């Protein structure tokens, strides 16, 4: 097993509210291996943002332990925070400062040269608007600035909480490509997102949580599972159904065959003179897995 960049064990977070104690995260285990893009999925209120905030030292865990790059946090967070870039919830910058001023202050606080600001602005496509005030930015531009801020550190771990919120389709694609290329370049990315198709396209592994607990974790391919269903396209479905029944297969009204031996389907139909025009594996997608795991867990906890 590869080195773990993020480890959390038995993580718990309680909030005191007027209604009493609310548990946002309960006994959560999280393991993110080095390299690649790791999806962090869960319905609203499942505790994703709270977990991220605890990892980054913005919120204190009620119980449990966390490690970043093998170092216990929050105790040793100052020694590793320089290798972590993060966007948590909506981008938060001084509205009366320009985007460049905001980045400059953050860069100076870590001793990064101003050339790093130029490079970050260019990477996220804000050149030309970087001297405008932050409050004049669209939501998409604000997201880009937040991502630019994460790049100031040249991070080994990038934690992105809904990074494509408010972006137009082209922007989403750009950010997705950026995330993918960062993952391929060796940066570990923890991507929290509601857009499951996006996660499936970009992520190599994922953790799904609900009501503050881990529901599933692993490689995306493993979570989705191997295909056991195939869609057939033939000129005469009734004839095909009869042939397949004799061969021990069942063809549904939707023309789906449940099997782990698709080659025998083509063989049986071909022997009967029925030529397939299509045999398509039908895989579960991440959305199906997510909905199965999280059904009934919405609004379970405060985020």
């Amino acid at each position, binding site marked *: 097993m590869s080195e773990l960049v993020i480890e959390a064990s038995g993580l718990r977070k309680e909030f005191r509210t007027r209604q009493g104690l609310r548990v946002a995260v309960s006994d959560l285990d999280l393991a993110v291996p080095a390299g690649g893009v790791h999806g962090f999925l869960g319905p609203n209120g499942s505790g994703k943002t709270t977990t991220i*905030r605890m990892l*980054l*030292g*913005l*919120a*204190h865990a009620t119980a449990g332990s966390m490690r970043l790059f093998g170092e216990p946090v*929050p105790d040793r*967070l*100052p020694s590793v*925070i320089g290798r*972590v870039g*993060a966007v*948590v919830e*909506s981008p*938060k*910058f*001084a*509205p*009366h*400062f320009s985007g460049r*001023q*905001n980045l400059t*202050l*953050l860069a*100076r*606080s*870590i*001793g990064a040269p101003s050339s790093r600001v130029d490079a970050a602005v260019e990477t996220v496509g804000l050149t030309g608007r970087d001297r405008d005030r932050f409050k004049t930015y669209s939501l998409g531009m604000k997201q880009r600035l937040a991502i630019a*801020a994460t790049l*100031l*550190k040249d991070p080994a771990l990038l934690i992105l909480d809904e990074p494509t919120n408010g972006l137009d389709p082209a922007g989403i694609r750009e950010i997705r490509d950026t995330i993918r290329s960062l993952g391929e370049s060796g940066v570990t990315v923890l991507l929290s997102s509601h857009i499951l198709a996006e996660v499936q396209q970009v992520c190599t592994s994922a953790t799904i949580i609900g009501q503050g607990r881990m529901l599933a974790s692993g490689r995306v391919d493993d979570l989705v599972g191997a295909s056991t269903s195939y869609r057939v396209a033939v000129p005469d479905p009734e004839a095909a159904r009869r042939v397949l029944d004799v061969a021990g297969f069942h063809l549904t009204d939707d023309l789906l065959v449940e099997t782990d031996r698709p080659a025998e389907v083509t063989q049986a139909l071909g022997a009967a003179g029925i030529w397939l025009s299509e045999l398509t594996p039908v895989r579960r997608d991440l959305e199906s897995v997510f909905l199965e795991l999280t059904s009934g867990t919405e609004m379970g906890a405060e985020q």
Partner: protein
Amino acid sequence: MIRLLGVELTRLRWRRAVLALLVLAIVVPALIAASRVWATRPVSQGELDQAARNGSSEIQDCVDHPRRYGVPAQDAEQRCTDMVVGWYTGREPLSLAGERVGGSGMAVVAVLTAFLLLAGTTFVGHDWNTGSMSNQLLFEARRGRVWWAKALAVTLASFVLAAAVSTAYWLTLWATMRARDLPMLDGALADSLAYGMRGAGFATAAALGGYALTMLFRSTVATVGVLFGVSIAGGIIIATLGIGEQWQPQKNVSAIVKNGTTYYAEVPDSCFMRAQEATEPEPNSECDQIRDLSLWHGLGYYGVALAATAGASVASFRRRDVP
């Protein structure tokens, strides 16, 4: 730490609301200085003639009945004219000692204190209002360092500005007196500059206190509200509870800025019996109604308050979740 301090000073310099307050902390004392210079200008011959004309009937009445006016009959005309003209021009000559004791000196300290306190609270209130504090902590996770860097920035900027304004204020009055050939006691300028420095120190402490309170309450509005409530209710509560005048906030400000002041103390009834024996009580004794309040008492009073506020603020910032 030096790097963080530089960042916070830059942030402070770029924040327009803070800059506006700092500009006001320069402009208002300048206006007070100008008004004092104008209000104490020498009386011109034209003003004297006008005053003599306006008060001619009173001058004549005084000359006719000098005893009614407490004027000796000898030289009555000149004395009555000087007195009545003085009433009409009503202008005291400029005096550094006068400005320190009961004049504009405290007004300048009050103005600096108010604007610098607001600057301190506005500076960091903005970080909380916009949520950018969490972004800053993603780059520097040592919260204690962040607190101190911001505190140092507020303290440095406030003291440099307050000291410069105070010094400029007293130098302006001193130069005006010199230009008018007014008599001045030895060491008057040094005393005034020291007064200004103590005032600048107090205003700086207020800025730091405002900053610390805002880091505690995480809101400029809450800080200003609490300070307003304390300033209104504090004195009333102290008086209502019968706590001595030496614990009144204003008295302790005076003690700091004026390098000591006096306060009125309640004395036991037995002291009045002794008073009938016409013996003067020992200074600061149990029977002395006017007692000294030292600079050190004032420093202790506000020092403890500032230390308690700063301690609570640092502890809160280190422990509480940041939104």
